[in-house]
């Protein structure tokens, strides 16, 4: 996960104002964001293999009352996991930092979330070295797929700069378009 977050300013204001003059420019800007997010979404989905990360990870969800052991452990359904890796531009609640998402990737499936974050908190702890099944799971998944942040966060960490640069460029273009329209209006 990246330590730095570039906060874009003026997206909403620019688009709201630009909408009054040039809806096509707004569409162009949105297309840039959608393209970047779609690429990230695609990259994230590509990280999901059809086979389970480990041989013992069932492909189907447990059936209550019939599945022995691992009750509640979600099955590895690659299709579901991929379909639940989505892009979003929905803005979350504004918290104390007064920042909100202008574009994000979501990993909404339970199996995908486990694969994404397993071992994140346990890194460097006894849980990683424990001889229990959970410790074995964390070590195995870490050895095979690397540290936690294995799907959407991996994509984001890898492509964030590129995506931000592209979106920022589009935003600057949108601002320039808006300024041009404003100047024309003023004249």
């Amino acid at each position, binding site marked *: 996960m990246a330590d730095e977050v570039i906060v874009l*300013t003026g997206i909403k204001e620019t688009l709201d104002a630009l909408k009054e003059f040039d809806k096509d420019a707004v569409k162009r800007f949105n297309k840039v964001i959608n393209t970047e*997010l779609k690429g*990230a979404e695609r990259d994230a989905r590509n990280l999901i293999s059809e086979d389970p990360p480990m041989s013992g990870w069932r492909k189907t969800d447990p059936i209550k009352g019939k599945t022995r052991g691992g009750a509640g452990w979600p099955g590895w359904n690659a299709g579901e996991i991929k379909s639940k890796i989505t892009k979003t531009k929905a803005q979350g609640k504004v918290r104390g930092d007064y920042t*909100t*998402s202008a574009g*994000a990737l979501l990993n*909404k499936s339970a199996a995908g979330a486990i694969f994404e974050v397993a071992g994140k908190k346990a890194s460097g702890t006894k849980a990683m070295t424990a001889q229990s099944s959970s410790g074995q799971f964390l070590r195995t998944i870490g050895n095979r797929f690397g540290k936690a942040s294995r799907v959407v966060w991996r994509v984001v960490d890898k492509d964030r700069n590129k995506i931000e640069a592209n979106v920022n460029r589009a935003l600057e273009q949108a601002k320039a378009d808006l300024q041009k329209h404003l100047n024309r209006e003023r004249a």
Partner: protein
Amino acid sequence: MAVGAVVARILTQYSDKGSKAAQKDISKLGKNIDGFARKSSRAFGVAAAASAALAFKIGKDAVQAAIADQKSQVLLANALRNTAGASNEAISGVESYITSLQKQFSVVDDDLRPAMARLTAATGSITAAQGLMQTALDVSASSGADLGTAVGAIIKATSGQFKALKTLVPGLSNATIKSKDFAKALEEVNKQTSGAASKRSQTLEYRLAGLKIAFGEILETLGYALLPVIEKFATTLSTQVLPRIEAFIALNKDKLAASFQIAADAAVKLLAVSISFGDWVSNNMGLVKTMAAIIVGMFAIGRASAFIIMLGQVTAAMATLRATAAGAAIASAFATGGVSAAAGAAAVAGIIAAVGIGVMAPSSTSGGSGGKTVPSTGNPLPKINSSGAAKGIAPALGFPNNFGAKPPVITTTVDSTTAALQKFIDSLKVTNKTLTKTVSLQDKINAEAVRQNLARQARLSGSSTIAIGGSGSLAYKPNSGVNVIVNNAGSVVTGEDLVTSIVNGIERTTRRSFGTVGAFDR
């Protein structure tokens, strides 16, 4: 955004939603604080004002109480020195004694000190006086009489007069009275009244009085603290301020007296002018009405006249009565298409005669291509006093009382109206030549209105000559312009006739021009 999902933000944007909410909250808080501040400051202001007023009241009362207390102390001390040869220590002891009595019996020191002084004077001894004071307080309490009465009765008893004391203490035996033994009588009185003052002081009335006395003592204490300040102020006032005022008055008394005299004279003159102006108006109400009708008519017709510019000039010239008269006559002639030319001229002549401005009543005043003649002889308007009223009205209007002089403003007005007349005549020429394209629509309308008015006047009079009052005449020559000739010598036109004719003409013209009736209320 999904709950429970792993969210990887790619793009993060700044949102001012929270900050706006925060700003809104802060603003609201600020408004609340401001409101509270206003209310509280208002309340504090009231409280402060009340406090200031109270402080001033307290300070004033304190100083007054201190002054009164100081006065009574001085009087008592003087009495004690004169009657008993009291020393300062003895006087101080008496003051302490009075203070203790005041607290003990809730009797104000302002009553105790005179009583003490009288008793000391009667007995010649402070000690004896103090003993009698106690008796007097008891007698006062038991009888309900004031302390001064009780003291007076005891003092009389010291000289063998027991009647007053018997009145206050009915139980005093006749034998004692007959014996004229004051000591025995005093013993008897003490026996009957002892403790009365003390018991009275325990009543609610006197306990409240005690509180009042205590507060008065506090005020006096405060007043004694303020007295030096007052004394310093008084010293400054007497040593620095008053001498300078005296010096100023000594240096400028003549100028001040003259200024007062000038102001008084001006007031008297203003009063006289006001009275004379009012007299003039009441004596010449007909003329005033006539002028009012002319003025109103000018405004009514002015809406249809291309001479609206001239109207403004005339209106401005109406700042004075004379200018009004001059302008009204000519403007009325314009407004009525000539019918009121004679009337206006007559009005001018009348006003001129009334006001006594010789320069405004020339034998003839020519202007324009045609020219007009206004004879100065004859005064068609009644109720005009050509001398007395003029003397009153002229200064009231800002002109000196030298009626033979020629104010410059009149020349200017005549020139402007003459120029306006010329303009009017020129416009009539344009009308007679069949309006050309260069003539504006406004000019056409106005010219047509004037032409129709003149034609109507001609029809009414049976010829192209329009007669007013059987004497005045105005000739209208369509092919050669206008030649206005007014001759009202021997005219019998009255002020009422003038008003009626002008009003009728204006109404008809207005109705014809605008289709409205009652352009103004006569």
